[in-house]
């Protein structure tokens, strides 16, 4: 018997149709939770613990009886630190997996890659990472820290401590560019000045000539807005040149990927950051979270701020679904817009209805001996940067990301 191509295709299509039926039947009554993160490649240090906290939050909710009486099924995708895979997987999640919500995205580039796709597909999206602020989109909730919560504290505090002249080193994409403008803005308000800003592609790992240029410019401090494993070389080469004892460094990103544990103590000591989470903070909800994480994954060595805010994101979404009593996207959004709160690893987190961002606590932190020592805490800081430009109650159809004008 011979089979021509057409017959073969018919057979294959029929077989394919049968193959998909059982999986639909099997998981028809679970809630589908899509998780899209870089859990391999140069952003792996960010993504892996984020996926773990997604898992932890989902398992805890399931153990407590699930949501609306249904269990949550987590569908994770690894985007391999490759921006092109984000759009591909986002489409697959909305079309094939038909997920009820998507949490994830790490770099701002990845968020901007999938935001339009998810809005078009009417799939609710949570972006839980520290970022440059300004996203104004009713389909999106941003539970991470924004410049008004971070640079607005870090820049004036470090100017007060170290001096007015700032040299910025930033990653060369939307996050680095926009954050640098915020730093310029807050430096000016505090009477300081960004004397020079240099931008680096994400794969640059040689900072020798930059370090010489910084010494020539003689700033009072260096502000590092560097991202990913390759950029980590800066701190090594900075210490190798003995500069860590001459010019102090502050950073908006340091320790988000647990960089302070990858570097040796002497390379990281004295660097100042500002975050919503520190595993060293003496706060009951932080301790509860760390105990649960340790019980589930063995140790808490890899936990970091954006993993903690990813956990918050899942919990806030669950609160929204509970309140809405349904998975219908608009009803969940409306429930979340009532200003839902959750108290977790980053303290009390409240959704701001106008901007879909969060109000939360911030901590000024100095890295010492691979630990994040809290110097000073700030209670309930609103995302005032985005609040100044975005009002989703007045303009529910807004989809813009607002940037600061310098």
């Amino acid at each position, binding site marked *: 018997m011979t089979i021509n191509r057409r017959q073969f295709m018919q057979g294959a299509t029929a077989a394919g149709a049968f193959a998909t039926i059982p999986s639909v039947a099997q998981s028809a009554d679970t809630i589908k939770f899509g998780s899209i993160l870089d859990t391999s490649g140069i952003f792996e240090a960010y993504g892996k613990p984020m996926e773990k906290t997604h898992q932890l939050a989902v398992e805890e909710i399931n153990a407590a009886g699930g949501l609306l009486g249904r269990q949550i099924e987590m569908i994770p995708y690894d985007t391999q630190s490759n921006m092109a895979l984000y759009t591909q997987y986002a489409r697959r999640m909305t079309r094939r997996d038909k997920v009820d919500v998507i949490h994830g995205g790490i770099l701002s580039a990845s968020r901007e890659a999938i935001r339009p796709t998810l809005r078009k597909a009417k799939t609710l999206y949570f972006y839980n990472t520290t970022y440059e602020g300004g996203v104004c989109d009713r389909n999106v909730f941003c539970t991470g820290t924004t410049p008004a919560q971070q640079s607005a504290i870090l820049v004036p505090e470090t100017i007060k401590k170290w001096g007015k002249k700032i040299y910025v080193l930033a990653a060369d994409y939307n996050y680095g560019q926009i954050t640098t403008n915020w730093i310029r803005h807050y430096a000016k308000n505090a009477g300081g000045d960004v004397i020079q800003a240099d931008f680096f592609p994400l794969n640059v790992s040689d900072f020798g000539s930059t370090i010489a240029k910084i*010494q020539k410019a003689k700033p009072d401090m260096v502000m590092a807005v560097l991202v990913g494993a390759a950029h980590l070389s800066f701190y090594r080469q900075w210490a190798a040149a003995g500069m860590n004892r001459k010019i102090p460094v502050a950073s908006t990103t340091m320790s988000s990927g647990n960089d302070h544990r990858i570097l040796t103590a*002497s390379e990281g000591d004295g660097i100042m950051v500002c975050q919503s989470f520190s595993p060293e903070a003496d706060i009951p909800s932080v301790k509860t979270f760390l105990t649960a994480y340790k019980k589930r994954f063995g140790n808490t060595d890899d936990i970091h701020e954006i993993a903690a805010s990813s956990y918050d994101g899942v919990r806030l979404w669950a609160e929204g679904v509970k309140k809405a009593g349904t998975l219908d996207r608009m009803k969940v959004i409306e429930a979340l817009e009532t200003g839902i709160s959750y108290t977790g690893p980053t303290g009390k987190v409240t959704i701001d209805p106008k901007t879909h961002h969060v109000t939360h606590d911030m901590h000024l932190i100095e890295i010492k001996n691979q630990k994040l020592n809290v110097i000073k805490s700030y209670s309930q800081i609103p995302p005032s940067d985005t609040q100044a430009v975005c009002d989703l109650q007045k303009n529910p159809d807004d989809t813009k990301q607002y940037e600061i004008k310098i």
Partner: protein
Amino acid sequence: MDLAVVVVYEILYTIAFLALISAGLAVVFGMMRVVNLAHGEFILLGGYTAIVAHNNLGINLFVSMLVIAPVVVAVFGVVIERLIVRFLYGRLINTMLATWGLSLAMIGSFSLIFGTTTTSVKAPIGSISVGAFNISGYNIFIIASAIGVIALIFAILRFTRAGLVARGAMQNADMATAFGYDASRIYMATFAAGAALAGLAGGILAPLVGIGPNAGSLYIAKAFITVISGGASVVSGLITSSGFFGFVTQIVTFLTNSVIGELGLLVAAIILLRLLPTGISGRFFKNRL
């Protein structure tokens, strides 16, 4: 004045960096005409070896970098040569495919064994002051190592019997066989020497840039550009092309920024190969080492 010293220092460092990452490839590609696309991963293997030997086995860092890393990678090179490369001599495309596959397999293995997080060791030498500037003392060690490596390659090829035989076998394997030398073993030894140089580069650079499973791509492109622009002569090609590219990249970086600096290297390479299709040594140092 201080700044001038620092600029010269950074230029020398970049030249040394290019020479180190390209030396192994110059031997393997320049002499044997084998395109080893896993060269970047050979470098990483050296880096991982040095880090593991130092951090986990507690061996002195210099011994780990300068002895253990090249030896381990040389042994690995022999295994790869015997199992894969020796069947493919003279078949350029097949070698490329095989070594590319090897490179992917090595990246996968590194991820499995060491995880995808970048690992490193602290630079063993402190900093030096030049007037108002601080510079990394470790970079001096890298510059010295590069000079040492080039001198070693030159000395072996020029003054030893083994070097002479290797050069002869590369020019005409049949003739070498007719003289009673086992060409197959000479190829094996040359490939192992290239691998050892890659391992040495990985070991020496590990404290400075950090080693992760995907970091090989940072080296492979620059190494190939340097070797191809250098041309067929191993030593003079290596010196002239890394000198040229190191100078161009750093000067452009100082005048503008590191993005344009990297771009400068590529533009310089394109112009150079357009004017000198056989590389620098193909034109100026023909039939020399």
